[in-house]
C-alpha cells in the first residue's frame, strides 16, 4: 500500500513537471507574439485608450502618456529581434526522458537513505494511555506527569514521582518534585533530606549551599537523621574542613544502630579521610550499599566531567569537579581537570584567578 502511494506520487511529480512537453504539438516556429516587448507597449497603448474611455485619465495626461508609450514602442521595434533557433524535437524528448528517469532515480535512493518507510504514525490519541500499573516506567512517568500538569497541586503525586526520577537519574526533576511535595504536603524531615540528596546528585555529587540548608532543616525537624548528618559531614569534607568531617563521621558511626547497612560506607570514607587503609568489611554486615554509594558518587563525578569536557561549563562547575576529584583522592585527575579548566576558561581573567586560588587551597600546585 505504502509503496503504491509512493510510486503514485513519483509518477504524478514527473508527469506534472513534463506536462508542457506531453501536450505540445510537434515543434513549430511559433513566435512569441503575446509576450514580446513591442507587444507590451501595444498593450499599454490599448490600456491608455480604455482608461480614457472610462474617464480615469484626463485627455492631457493621456496624450503625453500615449506619446511616451509610442516612443518606447518605436525604440523597442527598432531593435532587431533575436533570430530564434528552430526548436528541435530531440531536446524535448531528452528533457522529458531526463525528468521521467531522473525523478525516481534521485528520489527513491535518497528517500530510502533518509526515510523510515516501515514506521507508522503514532499520534498521541491512538496510543494506549499510560498507567501506573504499566510495566513501562517511562509510560508511567508520563502518565503521572500529565496528571501533575493538570493538577499541579497534588502533593502526593509529586511525592510518588520524586524517587522514580531519582532512579531514572533525572536529578533536577527529582529535586523539583521533592520541593513541590514539601510545599504542598508540609514539612517532613526525611523528605527534606531526600530533597537535599536530589540537589547533591543534580550538582554532580557536591553538597551545595542549597542542599546544606535542606539537610540543616531536615535535622531541625528530625534530629539525628543519619542521611542528613552524613551529607553535612560530606559537606565539611568538601569544604576542606577535615577535622570537622572526621568528627561528624565518627559521631555518626557512634550513634548508628549496629545493624545499619550504611555504617560501612561511612567507615570507609572516614578511613580514607584519615589516610588509613580501608577497614576490612564485615562480610556478614556488608551489603551492596557502600559500594553502591561510592559508585553513585563516582558516577556523578564522571558524568559532570563528561559534560564539562564536551559542552564546557561555568567556573563554579569546573571548581566543583576539581574539588570532587580532590575529595575522592584522585589528585592526578584533579590536576588534569584544573589544566582543562584553565584552557577552557582562559579568556576570562576572573575565572582563572579563582582557579588559581582554588589550586593553591587544595595544594594542586600553582599555574604551570
Amino acid at each position, binding site marked *: 500500500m*505504502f509503496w503504491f*502511494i509512493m510510486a503514485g*506520487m*513519483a509518477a504524478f*511529480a514527473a508527469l*506534472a*513537471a*513534463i*506536462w*508542457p*512537453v506531453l501536450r*505540445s504539438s510537434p*515543434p513549430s516556429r*511559433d513566435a*512569441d507574439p*503575446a*509576450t*514580446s516587448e513591442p507587444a*507590451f507597449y501595444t498593450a499599454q497603448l490599448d*490600456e*491608455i485608450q480604455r*482608461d480614457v474611455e472610462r474617464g*480615469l485619465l484626463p485627455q492631457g495626461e493621456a496624450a*503625453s*502618456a500615449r*506619446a511616451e*508609450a509610442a516612443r518606447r514602442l518605436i525604440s523597442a521595434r527598432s531593435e532587431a529581434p*533575436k533570430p530564434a*533557433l528552430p*526548436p528541435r524535437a530531440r*531536446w*524535448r524528448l531528452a*528533457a522529458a526522458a*531526463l*525528468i521521467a528517469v*531522473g525523478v525516481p532515480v*534521485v*528520489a527513491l535512493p*535518497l*528517500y530510502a537513505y*533518509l*526515510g*523510515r518507510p516501515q*514506521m507508522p*504514525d*503514532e*499520534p*498521541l*490519541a491512538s*496510543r494506549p494511555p499510560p498507567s501506573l500499573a504499566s510495566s513501562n516506567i*517511562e*509510560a508511567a512517568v*508520563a502518565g503521572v506527569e*500529565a496528571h*501533575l*500538569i493538570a493538577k*499541579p497541586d497534588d502533593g502526593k503525586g509529586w511525592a510518588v514521582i520524586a524517587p522514580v526520577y531519582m532512579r531514572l537519574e533525572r536529578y*533536577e526533576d527529582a529535586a*523539583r518534585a521533592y520541593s513541590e511535595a514539601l510545599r504542598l504536603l508540609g514539612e517532613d524531615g526525611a523528605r527534606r533530606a531526600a530533597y537535599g540528596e536530589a540537589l547533591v546528585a543534580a550538582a554532580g555529587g557536591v553538597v551545595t549551599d542549597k542542599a546544606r540548608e535542606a539537610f540543616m532543616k531536615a535535622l531541625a525537624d528530625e534530629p539525628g537523621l543519619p542521611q542528613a548528618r552524613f551529607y553535612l559531614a560530606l559537606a565539611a569534607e568538601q569544604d576542606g574542613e577535615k577535622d570537622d568531617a572526621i568528627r561528624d563521621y565518627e559521631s555518626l558511626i557512634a550513634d548508628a544502630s549496629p545493624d545499619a547497612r550504611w555504617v560501612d560506607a561511612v567507615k570507609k570514607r572516614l578511613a580514607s579521610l584519615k589516610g588509613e587503609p580501608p577497614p576490612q568489611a564485615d562480610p556478614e554486615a556488608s551489603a551492596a550499599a557502600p559500594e553502591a554509594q561510592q559508585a553513585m558518587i563516582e558516577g556523578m563525578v564522571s558524568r559532570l566531567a563528561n559534560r564539562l569536557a564536551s559542552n564546557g561549563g561555568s567556573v563554579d562547575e569546573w571548581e566543583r569537579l576539581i574539588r570532587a576529584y580532590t575529595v575522592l583522592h584522585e589528585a592526578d585527575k584533579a590536576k588534569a581537570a584544573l589544566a582543562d579548566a584553565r584552557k577552557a576558561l582562559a*579568556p576570562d581573567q576572573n575565572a582563572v584567578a579563582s582557579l588559581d586560588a582554588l589550586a593553591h587551597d587544595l595544594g594542586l600546585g600553582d599555574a604551570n
Partner: protein
Amino acid sequence: MIVEIGHFALVLALCAALAQTIVPSLGARLGDPVLMGVGQSAALTQLALVTIAFAALVNAHLTSDFSVLNVAENSHSAVPTIYKISGIWGNHEGSMLLWLLILAIFGGLVALFGRSLPRALRANALAVQGLIGVAFLLFILLTSNPFERLDPAPFEGRDLNPVLQDPGLAVHPPMLYLGYVGFSIVYSFAAAALIEGRIDAAWARFVRPFALVAWSLLTLGIAAGSFWAYYTLGWGGFWFWDPVENASLMPWLAGTAFVHSVAVMEKRDALKVWTIFLAILAFSFSLLGTFLVRSGVLTSVHAFANDPRRGVFILAILAFFILGSFALFAWRAPVLKQGGLFAPVSREGALVLNNLLLTTACATVFFGTLYPLALEELTGEKITVGAPFFNATCGLLLLAAASVMPIGFSLAWKRGDLLGVIQRLTAAIAAGAVAAGAGAAWLRGGSIVAAIMAGVAIFVIVGSLIEVVVRAWRPGLAPGLALRRAFGLPLSFWGAALAHFGVGLTLLGLAGVGFGAETITTLHKGAPVEVGPYSVTLDSIGDRVGPNYRETVAAMTVRSGATVVAMIEPARRQFAARQMATTQAGLATIHFGQIYVSIADPTPDGDVPARLYWKPLVTLIWFGGATMALGGALSLADRRLRFGVAARARAGAVVAAAE
C-alpha cells in the same frame, strides 16, 4: 504513514526543483517555448509537493505524534492548539520548511501570473528560483530534516520554549519570512535580466508588485517582532540593535531603496543597473539574515540550533548565491542598455538621494553587525557594537533621509522646482520647527535628540498631508469636488503618501521615548508609586492556572490624580515542562502612550519588585509600521500604467497655482 508521505514529498520536491532549474534554462538557451514552459509546470509541482510536506508536519504537530523528533522536541500534549501550530515554525527545522514553502509559493505565483512577461525572462527567473529551492531543499533534507523519526516514541514532548508560547510567534516569523523570501523573486528576475542582457519596463512592471508585497510584509514582520520583544522581554525595549534584528533591518533598508528605484525605472526608464544591484542586495541581505539566525553564529532567542554542520552549509549557500550574483552582475551589467538622464533637482534626483542615504545606512548596520563577529572569529577579542554606534550612524542617516522625504515627494518628475516645493511645504516646516522647539523646552537641557526627532516627525506627517491637499485642491475649488478629486488620485500616490505618513508616525513614537519616565522599585500593597504623570498601586497578588503553566498575577490600578485610568495585571508564568519562567508585562494604553509594568517573583511578605515605565506615544512606533505596510498594499493594488511624463503638466499647473 502521513509523516512518511510528507517526507517523500519533500524528496520529490527536490527533483521538481532540479527540473525547474535545468529544463527552462535549457529552453531559454534553445529558444524552445515548450521547454521554457516546463519552468511553470515544475514550479507548480514543487509548490504542490512542498505543501504536502508542510501539511504532513502540521498534522504531526496537531496530533502530537512524538514519533517525529521535531514534534517530540518542540511540542507537548498540553500545549494549546494555536501553539501546536505556531510551534511548527518555532524551531529550526520547521522554520526552514516554512521558508521553503514560501519560496515555493512565490515561484508558483510567477508561474501562474507571469503571462505578460517575455517567455525567456520568465523561464530564466523560474530557473534561478528553482536553484534557490534546490539549495534549501538539500539543506533541509541533509542537515535539518523535520521528518526525522524517534523509535520508540517518547510519551511526552519536551514542550515549546515558553518564551515562544505567545501569539507573537504565530505572526512574526511567517510575515518576516514572506518578506525575506519575497525578495527572492526580485533577485531571480534580476539574475534573469542579467543572463538575458536586457531589462525593460515590463520587467519593472512585473517585479514591482512582488517587491511591494515583500516589503510590506517585511515591514509588518519587523514591527510585530519589535512589539513582541517590547511586551515580552520585560523592560520595555523595542529595538536592541541585536544582530538578529539588524539582520532583518538590512533587507528592509535595501528593499525600501529598491521599491523607490524601481519606481524611477518604471516611470522614467532610468537607474536600471542600480535597480538590478539593489535587487541582488536585498535578497543577499535576506540570505545573510537567514545565515546569522540559523547558523548558530549568534546566540539569542532566535538561535534555535547550534549545529556547526548547518552553519557551514548555509554559509556555502550564502557564498554561492551572493558571490554568484555579483559575479554575474560584474560580467553582464555593462551589457544592459542605460536609461535616460535627468536633472538633479527632480523626483528622480530626490529618489537617488533617498537611495544613497538608505544604502549607506544599510552599510553602517552591516559593518556594525559583522565587524564584531569577524573580529572575534579572527582574534578572539570580544567587542560590543551597540546602540551608541548605530544611533550615531544609521539613526542619523535615516533621520536625514526622513527630513528630505517630504521635499522629494513634492518634486515633479524630470525637472522640479525646489523653491516652489519649499514654499508649498512652509506649513509643514513651521509645524516641525514648533514641535522641535516645544520638545526642547519640555526637556530643558536634556538630550536634544528627542526634540529634533519630534520636529522631523511632525514635518514628515504634515508634509505628506499637504501633498494630498495640493494634489486634490486648488484655491476656489468647492470642498466636495476637492474630495472627489482626492478619491480619484491614483492608488499608488495614496500608497506613497500613506507610507510616508507612517514613517512620520514611527518617528514620532521613537521621539516619545525621550519624554518617558521609568521607576524601578518594590511595590507594597496599597502604596501608590509615581511613574510619569500617573501613579500605580498594587492591589493584590494571586495565583492562576493556565493550560500548561501557573502564573503569579499582581493586580494593579493606574490612576491619574484620583481618577482610575486602567487596571493592569502583570504576571510571572511558570512553565512546568521546561521549568522556565516568563514575564507578562502589564500594559495600559493611554492615548497613544503606554503604562508598562513588569514584575519579578513576589517576596515572601507579599511585596513585588517591579519596573514601571511611562512611555508616551510608544504605540505610534507600531501603528506607523502598520501604516507603512498599508501604504505598500495600496500601491500594490494600483495596476495602472505609470509614466513619468504624466506628472509634468499637472505639477506645472500646481506650481503656478501656488505662486
